[in-house]
Every structure is written in structure tokens, then in C-alpha cells.
């Protein structure tokens, strides 16, 4: 799987929690994921949604997605047009939720990625190519379970295909 787009970074780098990704005050009110996605990261960066071009990446530091189990968090990221989240590390529930929805959550050293950098991500070879800076960054290998879920397009599709878990 190959992905391409520009990097978005935030004023807070570590511990970006699910309340930041989508606030509780919206997640109950709005059920349409397309409408909900307009509020992605709003409390951290009110104009973020407007700056996204389809295919772009969210790039962050440690413990991305900590906090609640709300699946609306990876859902709004996906519906906002983000093709993958690249972070130093992820919180566990968020990480699972991403792959359950078919959204790659990629662990990598992000120190050499700045906001606006053009990135190409090759999940098969495990390389992020930072075109702007002309350098390559290695991705932590995807666990086999996550590779299966991603290949099937998420857990719903996985269950439809295999009538249960086949991991």
C-alpha cells in the first residue's frame, strides 16, 4: 500500500488525546461522520479541517490517541481525508480502532518530519520518503494481525470475509 500527501503537525506533540481528536460535545450530537469530521482536532487547531488535502498525514509524538475508547476518533480522521497517522507511539485502544476501520497507524521516528513536508509512505517496504527533505525514515514493522486487518479493509470486512476472526 502506497500513500502520499503532506504532513500536518500540532502545537502539542505528545499525548494528543481522543477528546482533542473529537470533542465529547460533538460526538454525541452529530451522527453523520462526514459532518462530525469537520470538527477534527478543533480544540487544538480550529482551522485544521480546512487545511487538509485528501491523502495528507497527521504526524505526532508519543502516545497519540490516549484517553477514551471512542471510535469516532479514528473515524473523523479517516473521513477528514487523512490517509494515515504517523506517530512515535500510540495508545492501545486508539491503535486497535484505527486498524478496525482500515486506517493505518504507523509507528516511526518523526523528528525529521516538519509541518508541510511532502511524504510518500510505502507500507510494503516499510519506508517513509520525506520528499521535501530528501530523506528516508524507517517504519516499525506492522504486526501480522494489523497487516491482515488492513488488507481486508477493517474488522467489519474481515468478519464478512471470514465469518469470524482469522488472524
Amino acid at each position, binding site marked *: 500500500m502506497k500513500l502520499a500527501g503532506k504532513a500536518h503537525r500540532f502545537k502539542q506533540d505528545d499525548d494528543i488525546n481522543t477528546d*482533542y481528536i473529537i470533542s*465529547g460535545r460533538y460526538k454525541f450530537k452529530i451522527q453523520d461522520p462526514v459532518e462530525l469530521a469537520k470538527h477534527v482536532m478543533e*480544540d487544538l487547531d480550529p482551522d485544521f479541517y480546512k487545511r487538509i488535502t485528501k491523502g495528507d498525514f497527521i504526524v505526532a509524538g508519543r502516545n497519540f490517541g490516549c484517553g477514551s475508547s471512542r471510535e*469516532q476518533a479514528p473515524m473523523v480522521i479517516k473521513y477528514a481525508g487523512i490517509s494515515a497517522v504517523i506517530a512515535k507511539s500510540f495508545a*492501545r485502544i486508539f491503535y486497535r480502532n484505527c486498524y478496525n476501520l482500515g486506517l493505518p497507524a504507523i509507528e516511526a521516528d518523526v523528528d525529521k518530519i516538519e509541518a508541510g513536508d511532502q511524504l510518500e509512505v510505502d507500507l510494503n517496504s516499510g519506508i517513509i520518503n520525506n520528499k521535501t527533505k530528501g530523506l528516508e525514515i524507517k517504519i516499525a514493522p506492522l*504486526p501480522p*494481525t494489523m497487516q491482515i486487518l488492513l488488507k481486508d479493509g477493517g474488522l*467489519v470486512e474481515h468478519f464478512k470475509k471470514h465469518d469470524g476472526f482469522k488472524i
Partner: protein
Amino acid sequence: MGKTIAEKILSAHSGKEARVGDIVIADLDYLIGQDGTSGIAIDSFNNMGTKKVFDPSKIAIIIDHSSPSPNSGVSAIHKKIRDFQKEQGIKLYDIGCGVCHQITPEQGHAVPGDLIIGADSHTCTYGAINVFSTGIGSTDLAAGWTSGKLWFKVPDTIKVIYNGSLPRGVYSKDLILKLIGDITADGATYLALEIYGDAIANMSVDARFTMSNMAIECGAKAGLMEADKMVLDWVKAHARKKPNPVKADKDAKYIRPVEIDVSKLEPQIAKPHTVDNVVPISQVGDVPIQQGLIGTCTNGRLEDFQIAAKILKGKKVKDSCRLIIAPASKQILLDMIKDGTYQTLLNAGAVAVTPGCGPCVGTHNGVPSDGENVISTANRNFKGRMGNPNAFIYLGSPATVAASMIEGKIADPRKYL
């Protein structure tokens, strides 16, 4: 080599020798969802093409996050949940029953040795009664409803030992805040905690729930304790199922130990906007407070309100403050009325809301205004958590919140005890 509690429970439920790092598919004993997550779970369940849940007697949905409904969007989700309940014959705890993490053990759905999932991150609460319980997302819940199973990566475990006895004015909330401050918000990501020590052995089951509840705030998958006599008596009084207590082997292998001496600990405060931003109360400085909250799945139990009532008896919440109380279940509310705790708190100036999550999740029941400081017994102080990104949330024990209400600023409860 011996096994940890996590390895043992996941072995027993997968029929395999579950060791750290293994991926196992395990049978689930109980599955819960709440109104913030179950709507998407129902969609995923329908999209999977499933017609019937694997076993309706093992599934509950609890309407607690926005209850009663504050707007038509939430009402639509609640209706969807009620329709699903009728169609599938599962258990529904509707508005006013309480918070899912109080209801599940209180109504006897969780017993030692169980494996439980919940579409809510604080599902780790039942670790206090020796249950491997963990939070998952909506689609994982739908997969559980369909198959009765879920995959787990067997976690490594941190062994946490609290030595010494609790000083006056220091509670289980302070102990868990101290740990989170020490190991940070991702100190236990992908790991389980096993929590031991003299301070725990002398603690009520209510107080233990507070600690396991917050295991997720350092990233942990589970916050496990042993089932001692106190736990087994508690479970016997609440559950119909037979418990299967699980102890770690003496030679179980841990990723690391963490030891905390509680004997000199002060009350602890988590400052805005992260739960690991923890300081002893003597270092918090002068922080005026406009709103207090006692309640939630962390500290909304009878003992918590009794502690607050003891401090507030015959006193008044300062004029510049509002105190909201949200019992974690209807049973707790009834118990509070019965023993006079409720009246004491109302007389002191508290405002009671429906048993449930109350204002913790920012959907209703007390959204703070811009620039206001809140002191809360909840488990999260993220920016915007209570519905306003321009408010500041401090976390502490029920005693600390009660003392702070008297003074209108963050106050040390020890002088009122």
C-alpha cells in the same frame, strides 16, 4: 516459569498457553457498551451481516453518558439502542440506572477470573475484583457480540506495590494519581498492572475500584488486583455467578516493579490538562475554584460521598462555588438517602444530578464557562473534557473536592478531618 494474572486469565479463556506477546482469541464472559459507543457498534454489527448476538445473557448496554438525553441527536442514539435491545433480547440499563462501571459489578455481571470487554476505556475498573477487563472500540464490541470472542495480545505486567499505611486525608485516589504522575500517561501502554501492598489490603472494594478505574490513564490495558476475602465477600453479596479467583504465580515474570511508600504521601492533585501532571497539594498554590464535581465511575460510590459529607456536615459550599454531585448508580443514591449522606450534602449546598456520568464527559449537567477552574473526582482533565476547551480541570479525591468547596479554592482536606 510462572504466570501473571493476565497470562492466567487469557490462558483459561483461549485454551492456550498464553504468554507475553502471544496473540490469542479468547472467549468473553461479559460485554458492555454505553450510549456514546453503542450506536456505532450497532452499525458495525449490522454491517457485518450478523442477525443475532452470540448470547444475549452476556451482553448489556448502559445509557449513562448523556442521560436523560439533552438533545435530539442523543435521543436518536438512545432510541437506536432501545430498539436493538428489544430486537436482540440483551440487557438494557436505561437512564438513571447509573454508570456502566458501577452497574456491571454491582449488578453481579463481573466475578473474579472473568474476561470482560467494554466499549468504554474505563472498563479496566473491574480489575479491582480480579477481572481481566479492558476497554475496546465499537467495532471490536460488534465482533464480540457476533462471535463471543475477541483477539488479545497477551500483555507484559508491571507489579505495583504500595507499602505502608494511608495517612489521614489520603485516599486511594491519591495513590493512583501518584502512580500516574510517576510513570506518566504512557508509562504502561500495552501493559497490565498488578497492584499489591499493605495499603491495598486494608482498603474497601469501593476504594479499590477507584484505582483500577484509572489504570488506563497511564495507558494500561488492565489494573489487576487479587481477590482477597474482602473482594470475595463483596462479590458474594452482588453476583449470582461463581467466582474463579486467579493469583499470580510466585515465579511470574514482570517487566518491572514499581514501589511506592504511602506513609508520607500528601493528597495529590492532577493539574490541567493531562492526568499525569500531578503535584502534592502543598505545591498546587492558590487556585480559586468555581465548580466542584463529586461522582463518576472513579469516585461516585457511597464511601466517596460519605467522606465528602463528613467534611461538609454543618458547613456551606462557598458562594463563589457550585458543587455538583452525581451518584454512580441508583442503588448508591438510595443508600445515600438512607444513611443521610444525601441530605447532608444538599444542605451544604450541593446540586444532585441523575445517577450516571454527570458532567464528566462534557455533554450536559454542568459545562463550565470560559476561564473557570473546576475541581473534580473524575479520571480525566483533558482540555475540553467537560464541554468547554477554555475551562481548567483539576483532579483530586472526594475529600479534597469537599474541602475546596468550603474555601472556594483548592484546599487540603487534612485540616477538616
